[in-house]
């Protein structure tokens, strides 16, 4: 398999899902998830993230559009490609009267492409990886929310995967558990596994992801690397001075955009210019600079701008 830099782990074209009521949950979504990326799939609740994930895994049939996982056209090769994809969809789900270990054994037994002789070892190491070894024999019914989430992640790690699709993996975890899961995602990313992780938590995506896609009302409004997102931000400079008009004149003279004058200073968009040049020009023009700040809009501001909605930024 081609694992060159341009390979896409997930690629979709025109993915659309119209439910029977006529509501369009996913609208012409074109995903481009580079192989090896940790891709944050971001959007407010109800923006179509989970429906998209269900389509990607073949649980829901799209009204139109196609997608490829790990280079394979999904409709034709689902049976061949899905064993290489681990998933957590809309929270963990297991049989309540079976133990954690027995639940994983059930899923493993359903997988025709693994060696049964290694089942015990693989289940053991998956449980170990999420820290559930001690609770392996306990019934799922008696698991806490955090333990259930961990078991769900263990199921996704039952065998080596090339792609992990994790829908809100830190939901219900305490701060310690959240940290552990983020650490695990980073670790998997370092191992070369492509991780597609959905979240409504911006901070989470900022901390673990290399790429990001933003959904809003069923549409993909932006996707690309976090670095390129940072590059396209409008960095602003704020000059605090007793002579705002003079400062604004200097800023305008430097060719900065959106120059504005306020009571105690002037603002402008920095553009490609270095901030030290601005200060130098201000001082050279005799403007008494009391304060100078460079203001990068937070990712949150960017996303609110893209989706027109606020994010839950707690956690």
């Amino acid at each position: 398999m081609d694992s060159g830099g341009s390979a896409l782990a997930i690629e979709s074209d025109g993915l659309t899902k119209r439910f029977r009521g006529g509501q369009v949950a996913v609208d012409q979504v074109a995903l481009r998830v580079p192989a090896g990326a940790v891709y944050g799939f971001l959007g407010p609740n109800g923006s179509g993230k989970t429906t998209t994930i269900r389509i990607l895994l073949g649980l829901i049939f799209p009204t139109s559009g196609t997608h490829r996982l790990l280079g394979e056209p999904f409709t034709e090769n689902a049976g061949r490609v899905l064993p290489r994809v681990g998933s957590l969809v809309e929270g963990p789900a297991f049989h309540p009267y079976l133990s954690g270990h027995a639940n994983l054994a059930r899923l493993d037994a359903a997988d025709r492409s693994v060696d049964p002789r290694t089942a015990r070892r693989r289940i053991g190491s998956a449980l170990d990886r999420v820290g559930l070894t001690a609770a392996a024999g306990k019934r799922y019914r008696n698991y806490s929310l955090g333990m259930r989430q961990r078991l769900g992640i263990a199921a996704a790690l039952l065998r080596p995967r090339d792609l992990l699709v994790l829908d809100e993996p830190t939901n219900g975890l305490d701060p310690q558990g959240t940290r552990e899961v983020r650490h695990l995602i980073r670790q998997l990313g370092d191992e070369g596994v492509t991780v597609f992780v959905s979240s409504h938590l911006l901070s989470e995506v900022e901390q673990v992801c290399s790429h990001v896609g933003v959904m809003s009302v069923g549409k993909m409004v932006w996707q690309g690397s976090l670095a390129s997102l940072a590059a396209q931000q409008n960095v602003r400079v704020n000059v605090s001075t007793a002579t705002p008009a003079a400062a604004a004149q200097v800023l305008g003279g430097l060719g900065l955009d959106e120059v504005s004058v306020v009571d105690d200073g002037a603002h402008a968009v920095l553009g490609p210019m270095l901030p030290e040049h601005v200060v130098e020009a201000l001082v050279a023009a005799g403007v008494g600079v009391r304060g100078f700040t460079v203001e990068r809009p937070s990712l949150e501001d960017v996303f609110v701008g893209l989706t027109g909605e606020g994010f839950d930024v707690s956690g």
Partner: protein
Amino acid sequence: MSLAEAAASPVVGTPAVSRSLRFVRSEVGMVFRRRRNQALLVVLGCVPILIAVAIKISGGDNGGNGDAGALFGSITDNGVFVAFSALFVVIPLFLPMAVAVVAGDAVSGEANTGTLRYLLAVPVGRTRLLAVKFVGIAVWCIACSVVVAVVGVVIGLILFGGGDVTLLSGTSVSFGAGLWRLTLVAAYVAVSIAAVGAIGLFVSTLTEVPIAAMATTLGLTITSQVLDAVPQISAVHPWLPSHYWQQFIDVLRDPMALDKVGHGLLAAATYAVLFLTLAWARFTSKDVSS
């Protein structure tokens, strides 16, 4: 080749068949490990005991009239008739109920707990999932029938003894031949209720609420029996799933009168094929959003 591809490539020394059978074993294990299902088997096992003890206490002088009377009347002569009588009693309602519970739960239960989406993502193909589910249901049908038959023979032998079996037509056969006929009857009963299982499996693909699927399945078998009781539509009676259920009594004549039993088997097979096809058509095109 990636790590996951390497792991997914065929493993030397583990035949594909045995790897496919793991899921079947797991499914059958799930059915029989559930407390609810174990309780159902216990209840079914109590039926022959109840019959045997009741007849022992009453002295069993008068068996009454008709097929049921003939069966019950023979119990004091030979304990094996406890098994025949018990199967005759449980097939109209008890067995369909036990099958409706397991079959109705088959897909809707997995949908209800959400485990369905993870099975499909493993991946388990939808056709394969239905096939494995039906194998589980079929094994359950056999178990239900066998429990009633075996408990019936054991309690019958304890309370009434064995020996040569006098058939309903008056001729005697050896005890071994009697047990052979019981095996045939138990198999017929298992096949008959497996048709209910196929209906249940189809209903189970329609909902995410197991109890609704169970009730609907049981409701359909009761409807069949209600229609069977309406003389004006006697033309369709032979094609009702329940019409020939108790006809296994013909196996206890000499020679065996098998035309109606054969028709019963044909009807069961027809319903099984019809509803398995419907279940397949429904399930393979269904959005799983549970």
